């Protein structure tokens, strides 16, 4: 142990210790980060599950509409009410008359006090600039200009084929954006330049329905389309659909901003949507659609039919008389409109046959077999076994036959469009119905390969799904998903991206993240925000189905101890909510655990309560109103012909009764009458339903008001 050796020895020892310490810290840190990452993944899957469940709910609502139209027990007045539901304004449209552009100037006066942009047609860059400036300053465009803009846009779109063919030979690069909503478009224009002849763009659908500025985005896109019709391209997305807009908020936005002209704007917009091209092909090599494809996608067929017949994907097609049995039979059986039995508050859980033993969460996020197991409700189009074409719908516990809703689309046309607007890629071979969304398919790499080969294409670009990094490459590079809406679910939830395609057809991705925070947040802070938001949504969802959940829990707890095992809890929740989520892992964030590890199942409802608008309303009714408030809102909005926000008491009562019978809700007429009268605050016979519905929201008991 000489001096020299000991110094080296101790230095070496010190160094060894330092290395060990470093490894320890690194080890610890990586574990911490991994757990954060896991929490983020869970949060995103919560958002995604809820979103897709909403889409399913939307499809159920549309089947309700169709049912209502043909409900045979109704008397005269009721039928009148019903016809309002499905006869959208454009059905009353004077189809032949084509209003001239100038007519609008005659019809609508723009007052001098209006300081917003004044458009002059044909539009020029001066107009698009003034629009951009105006919207940055939160101004609205006057209704007359909106109508004129839509009018002109429709004219231009009508000239286009269903599938647009583009070439990159004259421009350097084309920028492709998918689902760019709200102010994302400004960010993209800022980063990538405004659309022009040298800077062409393609927007791959879903321009509306999220955020509060959908109409402004549409205006901007259409304005650029009019100025550069060969350099600003638009594909139709599944949200360019008036029934979707009813549920997802765009309709409301327009009515709020445009009051008396809102309806006309929405009518015209319906037409404009239906004239949006369905697909784009670049250099005959790259196919771009909003959703995806299916194993029956036929581009030639898609290019030929009259695309504007497809007003809304949620209106089922007429039954096809010329049927090739084999092919079209499969199409019908796999028809994506799937009805789901709704379990009603307080109803006996077991009687519904929904009890599940320990759930095998075999497929995550894709497979919802639990839904289909319950009776397998489907729309079936028969050729008319007894008499003419009929629509047979499994409605709750029985089958209802009704004369078909007249629609001009054939089943094949309808399916072809639904497939390209709603499908999602999957990584296994094959093509299966997209049960999660309720429309379109899941298509595998083999389907892609076959299609690309058949049409001599190189790749497929699509959007439709939120991707954490803003884009994703799948099917061996043959499919690209491009998603431009950063922070889709919540601030910090995901990046956005757009794609630049050069003449070599090699894509280049540009990613970004828009954030409210200017200070850079740590990952922990970002994840916490997203996670908190996701859990909040999830708790609200749990709360909205409280009665059913409690009934399900009680199945496992016949002695009312208030506790069940973790596994039982997870099974019950899964079977009621039909959200494919890792319930076991989320459990600790949602509910309290007893010391022995069992779950105190009532605790997940502790922090929330529904604030009812009226004190006298019974709890069961309150819960039902809360649960179906979105549906009710849509229905009320449709009844409210003049969009005044008011409906008569009689209309309210009738609507409610019909809704009752659709869902077999056990609430007696007298309660409804009482409710109706108590909502009529000023006793003038009319109800402000927005106020009424807005009051039925869930509040956190401990939140600061």
């Amino acid at each position, binding site marked *: 142990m000489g001096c020299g050796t000991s110094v080296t020895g101790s230095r070496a020892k010190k160094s060894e210790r330092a290395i060990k*310490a470093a*490894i320890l*810290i690194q*080890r610890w840190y990586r574990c911490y980060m991994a*757990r954060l990452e896991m929490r983020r993944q*869970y949060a995103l899957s919560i958002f995604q599950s809820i979103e897709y469940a909403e889409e399913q709910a939307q499809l159920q609502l549309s089947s309700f509409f169709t049912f209502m139209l043909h409900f045979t027990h109704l008397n005269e007045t009721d039928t009148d009410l019903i016809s309002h539901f499905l006869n959208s304004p454009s059905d009353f449209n004077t189809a032949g008359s084509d209003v001239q552009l100038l007519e609008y100037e005659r019809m609508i006066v723009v007052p001098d006090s209006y300081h917003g942009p004044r458009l002059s047609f044909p539009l020029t860059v001066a107009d698009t600039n003034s629009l951009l400036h105006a919207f940055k300053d939160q101004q609205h465009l006057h209704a007359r200009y909106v109508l004129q803009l839509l009018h002109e846009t429709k004219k231009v779109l009508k000239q286009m084929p269903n599938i647009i063919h583009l070439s990159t030979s004259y421009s350097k690069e084309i920028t492709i954006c998918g689902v760019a909503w709200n102010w994302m478009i400004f960010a993209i224009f800022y980063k990538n330049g405004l659309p022009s002849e040298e800077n062409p763009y393609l927007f791959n659908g879903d321009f509306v329905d999220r955020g509060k500025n959908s109409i402004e985005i549409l205006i901007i896109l259409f304005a650029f389309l009019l100025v550069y019709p060969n350099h600003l391209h638009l594909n139709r997305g599944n949200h360019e659909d008036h029934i979707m807009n009813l549920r997802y908020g765009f309709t409301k936005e327009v009515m709020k901003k445009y009051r008396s002209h809102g309806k006309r704007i929405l009518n015209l917009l319906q037409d404009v949507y239906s004239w949006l091209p369905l697909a784009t092909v670049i250099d005959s090599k790259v196919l771009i659609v909003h959703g995806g494809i299916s194993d029956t996608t036929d581009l030639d067929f898609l290019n030929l039919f009259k695309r504007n017949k497809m007003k809304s994907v949620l209106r089922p097609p007429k039954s096809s008389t010329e049927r090739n049995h084999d092919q079209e039979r499969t199409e019908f059986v796999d028809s994506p409109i799937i009805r789901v039995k709704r379990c009603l508050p307080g109803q006996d859980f077991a009687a519904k046959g929904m009890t599940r033993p320990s759930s095998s969460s075999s497929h995550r*996020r894709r497979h919802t077999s639990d839904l289909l197991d319950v009776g397998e409700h489907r729309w079936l189009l028969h050729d008319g076994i007894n008499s003419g074409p009929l629509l047979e719908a499994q409605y709750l516990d029985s089958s209802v036959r009704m004369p078909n809703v007249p629609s001009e689309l054939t089943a094949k046309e309808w399916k072809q469009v639904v497939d390209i607007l709603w499908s999602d890629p999957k990584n296994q071979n094959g093509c299966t119905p997209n049960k999660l969304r309720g429309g379109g398919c899941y298509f595998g790499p083999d389907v892609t390969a076959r299609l690309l080969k058949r049409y001599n294409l190189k790749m497929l670009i699509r959007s439709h799904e939120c991707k954490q990094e803003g884009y994703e490459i799948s099917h061996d590079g043959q499919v690209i998903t491009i998603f431009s809406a950063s922070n889709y679910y919540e601030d910090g939830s995901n990046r956005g991206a757009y794609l630049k395609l050069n003449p070599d057809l090699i894509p280049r991705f540009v990613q970004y993240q828009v954030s409210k925070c200017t200070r850079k947040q740590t*990952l922990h802070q970002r994840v916490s925000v997203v996670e908190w938001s996701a859990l909040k949504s999830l708790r609200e969802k749990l709360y909205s189905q409280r009665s059913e959940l409690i009934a399900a829990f009680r199945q496992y707890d016949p002695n009312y101890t208030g506790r069940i095992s973790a596994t039982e809890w997870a099974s019950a929740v899964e079977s009621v909510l039909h959200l494919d989520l890792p319930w076991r892992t989320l459990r600790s964030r949602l509910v309290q655990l007893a010391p022995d590890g069992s779950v105190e199942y009532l605790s997940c409802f502790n922090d929330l309560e529904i604030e009812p608008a009226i004190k006298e309303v019974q709890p069961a009714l309150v819960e039902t109103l809360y649960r179906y408030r979105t549906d009710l809102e849509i229905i009320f909005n449709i009844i409210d012909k003049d969009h005044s926000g008011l409906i008569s008491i009689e209309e309210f009562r009738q609507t409610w009764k019909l809704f009752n019978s659709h869902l077999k809700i056990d609430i007696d007429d007298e309660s409804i009458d009482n409710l109706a009268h108590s909502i009529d605050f000023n006793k003038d016979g009319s109800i402000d339903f927005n106020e009424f519905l807005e009051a039925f929201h869930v509040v956190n008991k401990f939140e600061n008001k």
Partner: protein
Amino acid sequence: GEEEKDGQQEEQLFSIIADIQKKITDAFEVFDHECNKTVDVREIGTIIRSLGCCPSEGDLHDMLAEVEEEEPTGYIRLEKFLPMMTKVLMERRYRPVPEDVLLRAFEVLDANKCGHLTKEELVKYMTEEGEPFTQEEMEEMLSAAVDPETNTVRYRDYITMMVVDES
């Protein structure tokens, strides 16, 4: 009597194992994007760590070797992962780093015993020694660890904050 007790214990053991296996499967499925019981090999570390284990990179490497296919496909199957991970959890291997041990580790790096590390010192140790951080990892750690007022890493406070975050 005795037999009954054994039977009970066995049952308890089975239920513990079942519980563990469900936890593992849940975590696995988060990354099973194609719903075919496989995950990308690069996600295995995250999965293992999220289950409460705290392996070093070297440990991870060893675990991976156990579950990879003979001819690596880039994917790990649940079939192979589950038994390995169950054993790890049952044997309570790769336990997390306790707070006091972590503190001592920082103190080792703090040669002058002044209660804090400079940013440069931390970067040097984390990116040059042990199992070095990537630039991204380093940046992320600095964003939370560096006290903006003094521009140093007051590691005691940092540890306390991180521990609170987790709970």
